[in-house]
């Protein structure tokens, strides 16, 4: 397959400018059985997250006597990608599960629930690049939806470089054919970074530009996360006013 030109006249393949996010939406409380849940769309990405816990941790020897354990499972549906993916974890999803867990742990008050476990299940129903950061964004909402106390939400987005231009929120073709991809997750209140990965090639200047773009994207998504949580209760609160 021939590599397309990714930026023409300052516009990307889907018409976006370098600093634009794809259309997105976030909804909280979409599943009945889970303690907390959230659904997110970002471009063609469709991600569903469920949170169970805090609950008793089994097997007992994995319990931590002074804190709750956070477990994350990132998983892609067989039909989520163009070429059917065999069900089950592969090496990529195991690494992603780990970095997502490490992105979420810093905000949670885990010491409030010693010996317990909090499970986060991230299912990618349809993928189009940026699933791990979208997964983190949705997982934060699901954790808050479950009533688990946290210092702040965690918001994720990717920045990168395509055809020499630093861009925000890479789509699949840009991730595949571009020169750099940098997923990042932030605690927006204090701008503390809890996930940072990168592969490709950045000059120091491009690296800073990518960061600036990412923080801008994070601001927009953070508002949407908060709105999703409020929206679950607000329509009815609005009615009574």
């Amino acid at each position, binding site marked *: 397959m021939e590599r397309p030109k990714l930026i023409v006249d300052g516009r990307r393949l889907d018409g976006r400018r370098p600093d634009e996010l794809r259309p997105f939406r976030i909804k909280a409380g979409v599943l009945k059985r889970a303690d907390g849940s959230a659904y997110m769309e970002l471009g063609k990405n469709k991600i569903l997250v469920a949170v169970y816990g805090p609950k008793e*941790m089994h097997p007992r020897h994995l319990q931590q006597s002074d804190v709750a354990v956070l477990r994350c499972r990132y998983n892609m549906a067989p039909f989520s990608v163009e070429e059917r993916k065999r069900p089950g974890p592969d090496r990529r999803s195991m690494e992603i599960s780990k970095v997502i867990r490490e992105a979420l742990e810093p905000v949670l008050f885990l010491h409030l629930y010693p010996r317990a476990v909090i499970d986060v299940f991230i299912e990618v129903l349809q993928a189009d690049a940026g699933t791990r950061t979208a997964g983190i964004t949705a997982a934060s909402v699901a954790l*808050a939806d479950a*009533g688990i*106390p946290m210092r702040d939400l965690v918001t994720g987005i990717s920045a990168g470089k395509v055809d020499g231009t630093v861009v925000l929120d890479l789509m699949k073709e840009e991730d595949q054919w571009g020169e750099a991809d940098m997923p990042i997750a932030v605690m927006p209140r204090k701008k503390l970074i809890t996930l940072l990965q990168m592969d490709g090639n950045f000059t120091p200047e491009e690296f800073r530009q990518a960061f600036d773009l990412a923080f801008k994207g994070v601001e927009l998504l953070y508002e949407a996360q908060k709105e999703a949580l409020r929206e679950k209760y607000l329509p*009815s609160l609005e009615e009574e006013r």
Partner: protein
Amino acid sequence: MLFVSNRELVVPGKLLAEGNYVAGEGAFVEDGKIFSSVVGLTEIRERSVSVISLQGRYIPRRGDKVIGIVVDTHPYGWILDLNSPYTGNLLASELVGRRIDIFKEDLSKLLRMGDAVLAEVREVDDRWRVFLSPLQRGRIKEGRLVEISPAKVPRVIGRRGSMLRVLQETTGCRLEVGINGRILVKGKDPDKVNAVVEAILLIEKEAHLSGLTDRIKAKLEKLR
């Protein structure tokens, strides 16, 4: 200085107050400022700023009245599920009020798996083992058991018991409210019992709205 008003809907990370204030439940202190840690409604009492969570699991505390469900047995009694990350311990001797000879008596005759028990949390030790004292001799035998989110239980009780009074007085039913989200509804008339169960589920759904007590009262009085 306060940054929110009373009964305002906030999300985690929201700045609530700065200065001469104390953080109550659902709030934490960082860099001398008070932030919300949960999704909930603010509660401001004098100098204390709290956020009452609209969701969340039950964490046992001494003195809580709970309804537990038997999930396991051990030589001297049972382990009860409390709808919590932590299970409760109930001694057989306490349930029947006398010493039990575990070699002569069959504990399963007293309580079986799945039986519900009305109890009080006597103690929670520093290893989070929860010890229960029964409030009744034996298992719960009659009535309907409703499970709601523990965060909504205070609403079922109401300020100074106002909602609970409405539920009981308009229908003639009696309620045993477990702080852990399990509520037992007893009554002679099954229609009245059903009405109370429906009212409780409605309270769970609309706990964050005001005027709820009056609306529930009006609904139930129509049945009289």
